[in-house]
């Protein structure tokens, strides 16, 4: 185990700050989808880079937890590496890239492909927690709208999309309704991931540091993506399976291979892709793909 950073408490935050965050989390869990204000602290990483998620993770983490950190679905993106190192240094907890082994998963922009289980907690980093913010910039107004459950503005916006483009033009941070009451921003995950939130056995916590809000979805809670009868909610479909592991029905990243239009599509969830390849699944470009995408599983 790494030696802990001297001079700082377990998981960096002082106990008083943890208690304050913990109290907010309890209220968030009790009122699914409602954004609880909390006295977010300055963290040793910039606002907008996961300070909300980091504070939530620091407040819930225990010595026995196993932590996974992903950004864009990958454990190896620079910001994921940086946050994972932060907790290795300050909490000394075990970390993993395996979704199934993690007890706490902190994420930015994706939900893992491997279905989450009971007992797991996923912590989302949230930039703008207010789903109505881009329709109404004033907190005083949006707060009243949530209080009165007045969400007509959002329906109008989505309907205007349909009138203009023939489709709802929201592809990520696609608004959901939690347990039939609160309109909620699922964080900027692609709408592909929205169905994973519905009735998930895992506890889902959301932390917005700069905006000072925490919200939650308890396990087994209804999460419905907004839609219209004549324009039902649909997730992105990819034409081809993953070029490396042949997975279907997963979210793919487009990788540009050259300047002549060459491209391939590979799993955004790198742990999922590596696990499949280790199990022997082979996509059509495995072997031909450049090393920077096709690198073999670490173990």
């Amino acid at each position, binding site marked *: 185990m790494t030696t802990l950073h001297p001079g700082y*408490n*377990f998981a960096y935050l002082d*106990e*008083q700050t*943890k*208690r*304050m965050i*913990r*109290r*907010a*989390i*309890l*209220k*968030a*869990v*009790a*009122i*699914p989808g*409602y954004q*609880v*204000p909390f006295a977010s602290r300055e963290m040793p990483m910039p606002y907008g880079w996961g300070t909300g998620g980091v504070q939530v993770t620091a*407040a*819930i*983490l*225990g*010595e026995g937890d196993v932590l996974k950190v992903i950004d864009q679905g990958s454990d190896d993106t620079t910001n994921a590496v940086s946050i994972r190192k932060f907790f290795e240094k300050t909490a000394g907890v075990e970390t993993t890239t395996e979704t199934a082994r993690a007890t706490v998963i902190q994420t930015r922009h994706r939900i893992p492909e491997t279905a989450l289980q009971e007992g797991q907690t996923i912590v989302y980093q949230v930039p703008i927690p207010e789903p109505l913010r881009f329709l109404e910039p004033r907190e005083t107004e949006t*707060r*009243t709208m*949530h*209080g*009165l459950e007045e969400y007509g503005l959002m329906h109008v916006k989505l309907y205007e999309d349909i009138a203009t483009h023939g489709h709802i033009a929201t592809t990520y941070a696609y608004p959901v309704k939690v*347990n039939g*009451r*609160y309109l909620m921003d699922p964080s900027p995950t692609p709408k592909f991931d929205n169905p994973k939130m519905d*009735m998930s*056995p895992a*506890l889902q916590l959301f932390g917005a540091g700069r905006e000072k809000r925490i919200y*939650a*979805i*308890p*396990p*087994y*809670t*209804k999460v419905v993506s907004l839609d219209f009868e004549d324009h039902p909610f649909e997730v992105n479909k990819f034409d081809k399976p993953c070029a490396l592991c042949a997975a279907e029905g997963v979210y793919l990243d487009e990788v540009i291979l050259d300047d002549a239009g060459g491209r391939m599509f590979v799993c955004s969830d790198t742990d999922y892709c590596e696990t499949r390849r280790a199990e022997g699944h082979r996509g059509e470009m495995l072997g031909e793909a450049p090393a920077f995408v096709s690198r073999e599983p670490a173990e």
Partner: protein
Amino acid sequence: MDTLSPAHPHSLSGFARPVAESQSTFHAAMMALARPGQRQTLAASLTPPAPLSEGVAALALALCDFETTIWLDPAFTVSDEIASYLRFHTGARIVTSPAQANFALVGETAALPAFDAFALGTLDYPDRSTTLILQLPSLDGGPPFALSGPGVAGEVSLAAHPLPPDFEARMQANRAVFPRGVDLLIVAGLSLIGLPRSTSIRKAGG
């Protein structure tokens, strides 16, 4: 000042390992509210003054500090010992009005005050509501209720004992004012059940 007697709050211990025990106690409370009706276990060792139980004391120490207020029911105010124990270990302000309390500690659940005596929060800020921590002899043996709602896959049963006779009606009224309302943590010994305001309740087998 009187001499230190065994009942003096300073001699009654809080958490032996504050950081770890606060975390595990909080985690149990979080999971209790995330999984209503599902029993959680508190793993803490501390010595609160009677009749405050270890479990309730652990929750108070894990969640309260100088930024919070606590209300104690008459069972917990028979002497000043519990109040001074909590003040010493948490720094929380003990309030006499339940409506001002972030946390309410209730030792005599049969005489539980009406929920609307506590803070229910507002439509704009439903989080500004009291969390009730109820100390019971047992989580079994009472008339069974069926719970459903967020955190419950299907239905789960609750048979804690004793609860006020009008418990079902109170909880239904609490659910009806959602998103306002109180949240309950029900503790017997070191076992804990959560009953957040989002939970629907009805008498089971009726």
